[in-house]
């Protein structure tokens, strides 16, 4: 039995009739073709699927889309405004915060929440805040540089 659901995705109110077992990540990728949200592990560990749910970072592979009924979801596609990169995106660009880029959308979404709660995080605080996002390429150091760069630009926006 499908369930009517209304979710604001990147600022646009969308309506769906959903099989309740559909995971949020599949709604975003398959129904909305917002493929910037990646699937890494499917088990809640890697963080590649992180999106913002009413401003909080969540792993969209570990949530049913019906649970987001009435909520605002922001994906990586929703960060840039009128072609201007979000400060965190700019930071990843300027400070070389990625190599293959697979982890990057999740890293950026978690970093946006991090800076919204702590405008000037230390390197340790950034590492702790990104503990739920795994990267197999960078060794993390440049990712931390990127978040610090974004903090210097005024961070969360």
């Amino acid at each position, binding site marked *: 039995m499908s369930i009517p659901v209304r979710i604001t995705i990147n600022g646009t109110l969308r309506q769906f009739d959903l099989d309740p077992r559909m995971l949020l990540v599949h709604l975003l990728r398959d129904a909305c073709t917002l493929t910037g949200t990646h699937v890494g592990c499917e088990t809640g560990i890697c963080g590649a699927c*992180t999106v913002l749910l009413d401003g909080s970072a*969540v792993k969209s592979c570990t949530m049913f889309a019906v*649970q987001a009924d009435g909520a605002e979801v922001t994906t990586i596609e929703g960060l840039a405004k009128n072609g201007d990169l979000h400060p965190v995106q700019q930071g990843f660009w300027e400070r070389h915060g990625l190599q293959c880029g697979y982890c990057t959308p999740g890293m950026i979404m978690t970093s946006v929440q991090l800076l919204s709660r702590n405008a000037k995080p230390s390197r340790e605080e950034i590492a702790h805040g990104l503990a739920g996002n795994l990267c197999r390429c960078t060794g993390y150091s440049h990712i931390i540089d990127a978040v610090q760069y974004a903090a210097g630009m005024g961070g969360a926006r």
Partner: protein
Amino acid sequence: MYPAPFEYLRPATIDEAIALLVTHGEDAKILAGGHSLIPAMKLRLAQPRYIVDIGRIRGMSHIRETAGRIVVGAMATHDAIERSALLREKCPLLPETAGHIGDVQVRNKGTIGGSLAHADPAGDWPAAVLALDADIELAGPRGRRTVKADGFFVDLLTTATAPDEVLVEIRVPITSAKVAYEKTEQKASGFAIAGVAVVVEQGGVRVGVTGVAAKAYRAKAVERALAGQSAPTAEGIARAAALAAERVEALGDIHASPEYRLHLAEVNTARALRRAYGN
């Protein structure tokens, strides 16, 4: 990884949730933060026919002080507990424990009630509620009842909660800052391989141990060894900590052998005691 199909139910009140649990019996499962249930459903280890999502019930995520006790609603997230100013001041063991759970995203969704009801042998909350001697409040078709943390954990993934009951809140005493949680974690998920929570009170100490055995437990031999002492020596603490896993059957898995878990129980008990006593 798609879960098996199910029917999705979203009660607006605790009574409605209970009525749904009564109607659907063993076929129904409560969905709270979903961070234990959804992984199990994706692996099809759990295939409930009805999901009762309690996420929209109002008044289940409170954190407040009432009549000299701290009351935390079952739907309070790990994150809300970690960041609560009230708890940092009046029950610091709860925010300290919350900060050890998983990662930011897990803490944003997972709830204390879900974690306790799930009773994962490697969950962090069981150690804290045991050390705090928490009252756990359950609501069911026969009304409400309170279960002491010490009698709540029955076995692996099994608690005193009946299938038609909802865990509604926990109540714990206001404590001093003489508390500590020390944990050795499994690196990928953060789950406890051995976690020990300690609460020092006038004339005594309570010690909760998780991760080591099929269910979390109070290390009562340790508590007895330190009873009546307000400032035990380092040797006294070491002797007491050696009793942390007395008569405990330890779990073994790919992360740690039973022997290693017993060793870590002692090590983390000693660390937590030293920190709580300021020794």
